[in-house]
């Protein structure tokens, strides 16, 4: 077999694999959407949930998911970014660095319930934060940091050293090179990492059951004073997210339309992530253009 036919076969094989993967993924998405979309209605998206009667919605849970996601990202992104910059741009390649990397990777294999319980004992009980969005955001930060750090570090690796050398040769300090040259160039790929971890945060349930809690008290959407308990902005209120809601309905839900709510919520979740992806990508593209051409 000469190398040309080999090439053809291999490329064909790759097409096949990619096609199969797309097929599996689309089938999965299709399954979720087909069973969920018919349940959706304006009422479903905005109404508060009901404990045991028909006709509950997921409005508060949907809002909580987004709020928690934003808070968790506000806390974890700067930390992960800083750590990744240090690991890749400053740290020497010695055993200490390797140990830190390994430890971070190991952390990501812990089941989220362990992170959740840790968060419960530490944030909720010890620090008296109570079952609150803030506790949840901290727990998610713990859970999120390994993956985010790792993927930002990988993004930095995709920028070729020529750019670094260029920056340094122009007399910029290392830090300036990183912030002015490397980071802007790495924006699209950092964004992928952020979206991926945002997805995980969105879908996470076990870590939140013990921290952000699994009840969704009614919110007053006209009250934006973050110190009021019913204000949507209050970070100290318990907040059940959509993923936790799905988990709760499936495990102990006794409302007659539990199945419909569960599949509807799954579809909402998927659509929300989809919109989030598009928005993040659009913003990222604009940011990239502004930062690199300016």
């Amino acid at each position, binding site marked *: 077999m000469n*190398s*040309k036919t080999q*090439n053809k076969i*291999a490329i064909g*094989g*790759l097409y096949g*694999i*990619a096609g*199969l*993967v797309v097929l599996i*993924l*689309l089938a*999965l998405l299709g*399954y979720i959407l087909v069973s969920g979309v018919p349940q959706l209605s304006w009422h479903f998206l905005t109404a508060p949930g009901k404990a045991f009667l028909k006709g509950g919605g997921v409005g508060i849970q949907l809002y909580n998911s987004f709020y928690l996601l934003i808070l968790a990202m506000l806390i974890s992104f700067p*930390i992960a970014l800083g*750590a990744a910059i*240090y*690991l890749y741009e400053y740290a020497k390649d010695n055993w200490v660095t390797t140990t*830190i990397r*390994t*430890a971070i*990777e*190991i*952390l*990501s*294999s*812990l*089941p*989220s*319930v*362990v992170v959740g319980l*840790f968060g419960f*004992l*530490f944030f909720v009980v010890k620090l008296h934060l109570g079952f609150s969005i803030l506790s949840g955001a901290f727990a998610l930060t713990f859970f999120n*940091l390994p993956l985010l*750090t*790792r*993927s930002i570090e*990988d993004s930095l*690796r995709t920028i070729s050293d020529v750019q670094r050398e260029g920056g340094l040769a122009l007399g910029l*300090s*290392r*830090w*300036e090179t*990183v912030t002015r040259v490397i980071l802007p160039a790495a924006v699209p*790929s950092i964004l*992928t*990492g952020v979206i*991926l971890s945002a*997805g995980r945060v*969105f*879908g996470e*349930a*076990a870590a939140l059951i013990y921290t952000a809690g699994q009840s969704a008290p009614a919110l007053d959407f006209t009250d934006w004073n973050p110190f009021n308990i019913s204000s949507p902005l209050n970070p100290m209120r318990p907040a059940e997210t959509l993923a936790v809601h*799905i988990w709760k309905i499936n495990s102990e839900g006794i409302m007659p339309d539990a199945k419909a709510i569960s599949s509807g919520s*799954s579809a909402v*979740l*998927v659509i929300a*992530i989809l919109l989030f*992806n598009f928005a993040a990508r659009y913003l990222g593209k604009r940011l990239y253009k502004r930062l690199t051409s300016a």
Partner: protein
Amino acid sequence: MKTTEQLEAKLKRRSKAAKLEIWGRLISLTALMLIVAVVVAIIGFVASKGIATFTSNHVSLWDFLSGKSWNPGVNGANGKPEVGALPMIVGSFLITILSAIVATPFAIGTAVFMNEISPNKGAKILQPVTELLVGIPSVVYGFIGLSVVVPTTRAIFGGSGFGILSGTCVLFVMILPTVTSMSADALRAVPRYYREASLALGATQWQTIYKVVLRAATPGLMTAVVFGMARAFGEALAVQMVIGNAALMPNSLVSPSATLTSVLTTGIGNTVMGSLQNNALWSLALVLLFMSLVFNLIIRLIGRKGRLQ
């Protein structure tokens, strides 16, 4: 005199850029130290709770690792609590390895396709779809597994359909997005001129991919697989629904068995902190950390070998 002193002072003073540099270094180091603190805190927390089984409840480590019967609430024939974790260790090990073996070729193949063969289609279809799937909660995966995968396995292989095989199928789909998108990042990190040089030497596209790009990206690909395995390892809810979650030694790939995480997640809310039952569950978490460390080291070794060739 005065002017030279001023000049000297001015020269000795750190420039704005140098100050910024120190600041930047300090900030990024602080961030890293924060993460290290988090890692140490969690690992220390799990270890302190997990070791209590052996120190304060006097369970022998060997019984724990080799026993086949898991009933922490009940005393066994020898009058000691039955805390044999072997079935779960084997279950976790098998399911992680199998799903990684199945997912890796698919993930790397897809990543290669996205990056080397058809970047356009890759960026437009594959990447958004894979990223979307990461966010689906495990419960949903579990339910699809329960209503699609388990009956299929039952129809083809007999038995109840619950078992490692069904678990592998579900985990395969769950870790695919993570591994794929991280692999794609690793491939993207390979400099363009590697490919150009290889193609200029007359290599075909496949030869370039296989002999140059994949080789150069090996460490990154290994990381991707490690993270995929980590996710498989740590996944509980979805696996628990399709593997059967029975603390029995797996006789075959279709007999109900359990993983460390599934037993941990099912039991933890029902036990009282500080009791043997609870400590035994934390010991499972400790085993999990330890096994994940071992996996990590093995993969790293393989990765180093791959790079040298």
